Every structure is written in C-alpha cells, then in structure tokens.
C-alpha cells in the first residue's frame, strides 16, 4: 500500500506539470480527490489494514494528501496569475494618447509680473492703493514740483483730454492724493496704468507702473536703499548686484536710479545693456519738501521716499519680447506662452 501511495503521488505530480488550464486542473483534482478519486480510494482502503500498519500508512497517506493539496493549490495560483497577466496585457492602451487636461487660462504676462512685484512689497508692509488715471495738471505736475515751464515736463509727452484733464503720465499723483487723505505713517504701493505719447518697439502709449511711497517721522535715504535692494533680490535673485546712481526727478531729492546687473550678460557688457553691464530698472528718491507741502505734510516733521518702476520693462527683462507692443495685441498664441 505504501508503494501504491507513492506511485499515486508521483503520478499526480507528474500530471500537474502538464496542466495548462483551470479546467484541466479541475479534472485532475477530481481524478485524485473526487469521490471516486485515486487518493480517495486508497484512503477508503485504510480500514482493511492491520493495527500495526494503520498508523504508519495513515501518516504516510496524510502526508501524500497534504503535499498533493499544496501542489494543486500552487498550480491553481500559477494558472490564475498567468491568466490575470494575459488579461492585463490585453488591456494595454496607447499611453501616448493625450491626457484629458481641463482647459485653464493664464494671467496676462504683464499682470504676472505686476503681481510678483505687488506680493514682494505687500510682504514688506506696503498697502496696495489705486488712484484715477484721468488727472489734473495739479496732481500730475504742479503738486509734484513740476511747474508749467519746467523742462522736466519735456520728459513726459502727455495725452491731454479735450475737457482740460490729462491722462496721468505716471502713478505719482496718487502720492499727493494719499497725503491729502491720510496721516503719516504711510507705506503704500500704487500699481496701475499710466500714459505717454510714445509708440515704438520699446514704448506703448499705455503702460503699467508700480509707484511706492513711505513716509514717517524719520525715514532715511539708506532705508530707501534697503527696501529697494531687498525688493530687487527677491525679484531678480540673490546673485543680482544693484547700484544706485544720482539722477533727477522734480518730485524727489536726492534722486536716484537703480540699476541691476544685466540679465542677459550678467554684467559682462552686451548689446542689451549698451556694454555697461547694468540695466536701469527704477527711479527713486527722498520725497522733495515741496511735494510734502503740496500734500499738506510738514517736511520738518516727516521724511520719506518714493519710487516708481515700469512693469513692462521689468517683465521684458525676463520675456525678451522684441516689440513690446505685442503685449497689447492679445494674440492667443502670445498669451499662451507665459
């Protein structure tokens, strides 16, 4: 009987090797484990064994049964895995087909730059304020220490309206409006549109400026430097060098322009920077005492500084658009690039 059991085991294991389908496996299972199965038959014959043989053969029979059960289970698992693999293979797709990306819009490139500038100053405690674009001579020029026959008026080609108003040539009039309506300390930025009669590859008749004003009991020129250096580092990166050059604006004194190392050549000197290695990015200065007087502040009681920058110019340091009028054509092929 022992020999019979071993023969069954060997035959079953041999047969399992040839099984390729779940059905064949089931047939084989019935052949051995079914009610009339080969192993079942042997187990049934156990009763006829002698008392001495029974435990020995019984133990062997159980071992054979267990080993075959395991073997059948293993084959079953193998067949199932193989089946699933084949199924998955059949389900393969062309992964190069396009993703179903939802349509999304993009902010205008000038606005993207403006928002970055705003965010930096907002973090430094500047509040965003706006003012009218249609202005009077008083706010745009006179109150900013630029009387009618001042040569500085030549720097701004002004759009005049037929009703005697004008389109502001810079956002600085808001300085006066804020001083008139608010006591110091003042810490504001004024983003918005300004207008000058100018139309070529590097000028649009409407452009965006960010103007800033900080007034307190004791604000120094060194603090102007500190705020603007901090701003430029954040906007242009830690590696960027800054320098302040004396300049002239009627509404600030001392006045300065801030340059950064050229973004194209990194200061080596190239065509973009006129071989100087520097690019001017903003004008600034200590608020002129006359401007304080125009805003009803006492220049002996408060000091402050103001600055102003052109957003298109700063945006284009990054984007390098050869004709900045492209900004305002709203060509979708252009807008989608940024």
């Amino acid at each position: 009987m022992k020999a019979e059991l071993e023969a069954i085991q060997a035959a079953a294991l041999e047969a399992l090797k040839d099984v390729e389908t779940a059905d064949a496996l089931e047939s084989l299972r019935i052949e051995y484990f079914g009610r009339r199965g080969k192993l079942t038959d042997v187990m049934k014959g156990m009763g006829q064994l002698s008392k001495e043989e029974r435990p020995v053969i019984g133990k062997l029979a159980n071992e054979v049964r267990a080993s075959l059960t395991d073997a059948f289970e293993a084959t079953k698992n193998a067949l199932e895995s193989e089946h699933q693999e084949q199924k998955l293979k059949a389900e393969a797709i062309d992964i190069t087909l396009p993703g179903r990306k939802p349509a999304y819009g993009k902010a205008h490139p000038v606005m993207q730059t403006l928002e970055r500038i705003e965010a930096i100053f907002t973090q430094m405690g500047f509040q965003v304020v706006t003012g009218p674009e249609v202005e009077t001579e008083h706010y745009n020029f006179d109150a900013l220490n630029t009387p009618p026959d001042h040569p500085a008026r030549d720097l701004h080609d002004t759009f005049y309206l037929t009703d005697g108003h004008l389109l502001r040539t810079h956002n600085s009039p808001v300085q006066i409006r804020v001083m008139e309506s608010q006591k110091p300390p003042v810490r504001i930025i004024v983003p918005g549109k300004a207008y000058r009669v100018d139309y070529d590859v590097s000028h649009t008749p409407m452009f965006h400026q960010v103007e800033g004003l900080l007034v307190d009991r004791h604000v120094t020129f060194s603090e102007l430097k500190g705020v603007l250096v901090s701003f430029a580092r954040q906007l242009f990166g830690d590696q960027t060098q800054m320098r302040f050059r004396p300049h002239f604006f009627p509404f600030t004194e001392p006045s300065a322009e801030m340059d950064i190392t050229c973004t194209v050549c990194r200061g080596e000197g190239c065509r973009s920077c006129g071989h100087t290695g520097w690019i001017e990015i903003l004008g600034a200065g200590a608020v002129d005492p006359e401007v304080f007087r125009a805003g009803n502040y006492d220049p002996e009681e408060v000091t402050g500084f103001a600055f102003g920058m052109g957003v298109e110019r700063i945006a284009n340091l990054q984007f390098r658009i050869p004709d900045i009028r492209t900004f305002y054509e709203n060509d979708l092929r252009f807008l989608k690039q940024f």
Partner: protein
Amino acid sequence: MNVTQNWLKTYIDFDFSAEELADRLTMLGIEVEAIKELSTALNGVVVGKVTTIRPHPNADKLVLCQVDIGEEDTLQIVCGAPNVREGIFAPVATIGTDLPSGISIKRAKLRGEESHGMLCSEKELDISEDAAGLMELSSDLPIGTGFTDALGLDDTVFELEITPNRPDCLSLIGVAREIRAETGNDIKLPEVNVQEDDTDIREITSVTIDAPDLCPRYAARVIRGVKIGDSPTWLKQRLESVGIGVINNIVDVTNFVLMEYGQPLHAFDYNKLGENRIVVRRATEGEQITTLDEEERKLTPEMLVIADATKPVALAGIMGGYDSEITETTCDVLLESANFQPSSVRATAKALGIHTEASYRFERGTDPEAVIPAIDRATQLIVELAGGTVCQGTIDVYPGKCELGQIQLRPERVNFILGTELEATEIKQILIRLGFGVDTVQQDNIYQITVPTFRRDITREIDLIEEIARVHGYDNIPTTLPKGDIPVPKPNILVEVRRRIKNYLLASGMMEAINYSFCHPNCFDKIRLPEDNPLRDALKLQNPLSPEMSVLRTTLLPSLLVNAQHNHNHQIDNIALFEMSTVFLNGEEPARIAGILAGEIGVGVYGNPYKSPDFFDIKGIVEGALEVCGPTDWTYAITDEPTFHPGRNAEVLLDNQRIGILGEAHPKVLENYELPYKAYLFELDLEKLADAADFSKRFEPIPIYPSVLRDLAIVVEHDMPSDLPIEIIYSTGGDLVESVRLFDVYVGDQVQEGKKSLAYTITYHSATETLTDKEVNDLHDKVVNRLNQELGAELRL
C-alpha cells in the same frame, strides 16, 4: 551731449581710463550712455616735413620731395598735391601702411622715379572730405611721431545724458568741474588775452535792452577786418569729435566756445545791422524774420528778438537771422554773448518748433557770469584764426545782476536725511570742491553756503544735501531696512473681489487680455449703441496717436471683440478671453470685468474635443464669478440692448439693480467685427459686485441621515421658464428638499408640439431622521400634484 577724454583733459588733469571716467561720471549723476573710440586705424602714418622739392623729370604735375620723418635718411616721395612746398608739415603714410580709405602703401615707381611712401590729404586719411591738397600740420609738431598721437586723434567720445536740472554740465568746463568734485584737482581755464585797438566800441555800436525781464545780460564785442575761411584742423577735429558740423572759422569759434563754456554765442555781420546797433526787444505784432535755416518765421509779441535799428536780426537765444549771418564776404563781426530768461526761450522755441544747441542751454538756464569769459575767449580765437582787430572794450548791459544765493545748511540734517554719519568737515570739503562758498555760523552747527552762479538749480538745503550725497557716493550710503511701524492697512473688498473672480476665470479656461484704454469712436456704432446711449459720452483725447486710439473706453466689450477679430484673422478661433480694467464714464473710473467666448472653446484633443460655446456657457461663467464673491440671490431679466441677440441676453440683477449683462452678440455686431461664428459676451460692474460681496462663510453640518433621490420628468408649455417648477418643488418640500437639479430638457418626437419635457433630480433629506419610503412618496406625490395644478405640468412616464 558729447565730450571727449582729450578735450576734457585740457581743462583738468585726471588719470582715469575711459571706462573709469565713464563709471565715475555715471556715479556722479552724469550718465554715460555710450562710449565710442575714435579711429585708431592710422598706424604707420607719421608727422613729416618736406625738406626739399625738385621737379619730376618725366611729369609736369608731379614733384620729387625729400621728406624728413625723424629718421637718419630722408624719404623720397613723389607728390602731385597743389599745396606741396618746402617746409610744409604733412602726414606721411610709410611703406606697409593700410589706410582706412583702402590704399595700401608699397614701394613704387611713379613715371620712373622711386616713391617711398605717400604724403596724404584729409580724405586719404578718412578725416574729412577735403581732397584738395595735403593736410597741413602745425610746424610745432614733433617730426616722426605717430600722426594720431601728435594730433590727439586717439580719443574717446562719451555720450552724456545731462538731466534737466544740470545745465551747468552742458559744457566741457562744466563736466570738468564735476571731475574736480571727484578728484579735487584744479580746473585749468583757458588763458585769455585780448589785444584791442584804439577804436572805442561805444563809438561804433550800442546795445539797448528794452525787455530786461527777458534779457538779464547782453554783451557785445566788435572785431573788424576778419578774413572768413576754413577753420584749422584742430578746431574742426574738436567740433567733429563731438558731432558739431563745421561751417567757417567765425561760426566754428562760437560753437567751440559754446562747448567750452556752455555759453551760446552769436556772430553778426556788423555791416548788415541797421545803424550797426543792437536792440533787445519783444517782437511786434506781424513782424517776421528769416532765420539761418532760410525759413520765414512769423513772430508774436511774447517773443524776444535781437533787432537792429529797424528789424529783428535774430531770435534771441534760439537762432540767428539769415540776412545778418556771417558769409564769405563778411569783414566786420559783432559778437553777442548774452543771458536770456529760460521760460521765454522755451516758449518761443516750442511755438516755432526750433531746437538748437543754444536754445537747449538757454531753456535750462545759463550762467550770467560766463558771458564775459566766453566772449573774450571767442574774440581771442577769432583774431587768432581769422585775423582782424578788436575794438576797445566790451559793451555789457547787465540789468539782471543778482545777489549770489545764500543757503543755511545744518550738517546734522544731512545725516538725518541720508542715514549717514558724515563729519561736518567732510561735508564742508565736498561743498568746497563743488565750488560752493562755505562759512561757519554758530560753531559748525550751521553752515552759510554761497551758491556759485553756475549752479542756479541749488536754492534749498535739500539741494545741497543731494550734492553731498552724490559726491560722497550713493554706494557709500548704508543700506538699512525701515525702522518705523508698519501702518495697519484698510481692508479693500474690491481687491478681494478682483482676485477671486480672476482666479475663477483662469480656472475656467479663459485667458487674460489687456487692451489700451483708448478706442476708435466708431466702436459704439459697431456694437450698435443708439445715438442717445450714455456710453457714447466718451472722453476725447486732444492729441491722439491715431483715430483707433482717440477716445477713452466706456465699456470693455469692443476691445474684446477686436481681440476676437485679430485672433480670427490669424486663424486662431479658440477664443476665451477676459479683461479686468477701469472704464471712463461720467467723470468716474468704474472697475469692470468683461469676457468673450467665441469659435470653439476647450482643449480640442482626442477625448476632450472643442465645442462651440452657447448662451449657457457664458451664463455659467458669470454665475460662478458671482458665487465666488458670495451673493446667491441674483436674478435675470431679458433686455433690449442692441448689442445682443434680442432673445438671448440677460441683465444680471442684484436687489433689482443691474450689475452686469451677458448674452449672444447680435449678428450685426458679429458682422461689424467680421466674425464668422457666434460670440458670447459678458460685462460686470465690479464695484457693485464688491458692494454685494459677502465672504462670511459659516459651517453647515454635514448630513447625518441618508438622502433619497427621486427623478421627475414633466411636460410643460414650451415657453415656461425652467426655474418655475423648481420654486414650486422647494416651496412644497420645505426643509425636506435639499436640492433640485435640472438634468434634461427635451423637445422632439416623444413630446407633443408646443411642449417640452423637463427632468429634475430632487434630493429629499431630513436633518433630524431617516426619511421612510412612505414619507418620501407622499411628499413626492404632493410635489407632482402641485406642479400639475399650478403649471399644468403632466408627469412624463
């Protein structure tokens, strides 16, 4: 303004390289915009002297010269120039030189005679167009030295940007003064020594100033017996190096002194002045003058002229008259050096559209004390270059002489403003170098500053502080952060409304556009506004760039339609754009947001195809925009706005007030913008929306008990608004109806003509218990009954 390094060096010593000088000037506030190296292409050309000349044996027009170029042997050079003579100094191009004009100098035989180089004309050296003869050099130049070296042609031109407050820097000496502030070196003014004859100038001319308010000073000199001719090379070179055209020796001298002192001068032909005298007066009504440029100018009584006894002979400070200009036949010269009131010159120059080197300086203000040094310097040079004799004395009428400006400066105020820790002595030193007089009042606590006449821009303490800052160096001022308190900002709802709506629109797939604030006035016709529509009341520009940019926008819609047209014309038809901007209406600048959908919107790839937008796309976008700002209770009403399709538009109402409009563009509007497909537009008033905005969200409990969903399809009259049944469902179910969602609208075979089917999903829910089937069924039946009774709605099965 241009200056050159060598020219500057004649007024002050400095050792800077061109780059260093440019950097120093820039950091002083005189921005160097460009640096240009003058020609260094004349290597091999040396100064030579023709020692002997003999005839060429084989050619009548050529001679054989022996030329000394400082070497042991002289060179034999064959020359055909008409001005060649023994003793002449001229440039010699030696063997092996490649001239800029393209000639290469080789050993050559000319008609059988050896020639070891070439004696050159100006044209051959590419210095000027003069090819008439050899370029004659001064006989004091060292023989054999390099030509460019000897003439100072190796030079660097700096293009300077002089800010309008610094007219004193519009001259070589002015720039030299800035270098003095930087280096402390002294200014070397030209030595001027005028030899006068015995005739007193007062006997032969006079100057009368009838308008002393416009002419604070007028000085004149007379030089008689001059010979008009070309200027010498050095003078031409100087003028050409800074970009000033060469005319004749007299005019060139006035221009040279203009560049030197910043004092414009004018030379009259003395004999062409009526009664040989000068009257400075306002023009009379109807008076005319022909200026040097041969233009006839009509004058008005505000304009200041220089006249003779009868007629204007120059526009004061702007341009001379044609009739009294220096010509080849001029023999006697009356030289003018004057000071004019800046705003008068500015107004006249602007009115006549003439801008000259002179007017540029007078408009900004010249130094009245430069009048005499400049006229003396020019007189001396004229005699040197054109001969003649100088009448004794200078006529100097100076009605506008002012006291020197006095300013008190508090040294501690300097540090207070700048954030520096400068010693009083450093401050004093800087001011002295700039030419200010510094006197101490009250033990160094206050300085009394005397302002030189060339710095009329300095009138206040703060002006002095700027001077100290720039000479001390902006780079040397510390960099610190503000110490003051940060003011508490006021909340700004409009900013928040803008931010939310913009984020929402971007997420909905719309691109942000920015348009000019100007538009063409015909845009109101294009969007079909009636004649009396208030949006037509647009502000007009007095000086527009073009008709397309001549009025200010009162609505954003035309700009977006133009953008759609532009894109369509460039084969881009996936138009989803919005713009956020102010418009200009009734003297105010209300904030608006507007958008357009047209063509095919979406992504347009496999699995995510384009779709043509319809009314409900634009409506949905507007609804989302309103929702992100808080309001929930807006309503719609159809309008008769002619911009829109009469049956496909809606105004958006909040508390019965219009806050915006949306809809399909009228076919005629599409035609006006040449769009071949429908376009959907909206425009909202952001300020009204900000008034209604509500960002105060509160938590609502998440439902604990399960909801029950029931679908309901009803057939109603075709023109019944789809929201009527919804109102009835809510009012019937009360708290137990959580939501009603319209999911289908059907018109077609299955439904009787003139009717439509509306299908809703109703969500029933109770906050306090699980609804039983029976409760829901009863409620649902009630809903169906009311819909039937009140709207005649039939249940569609």
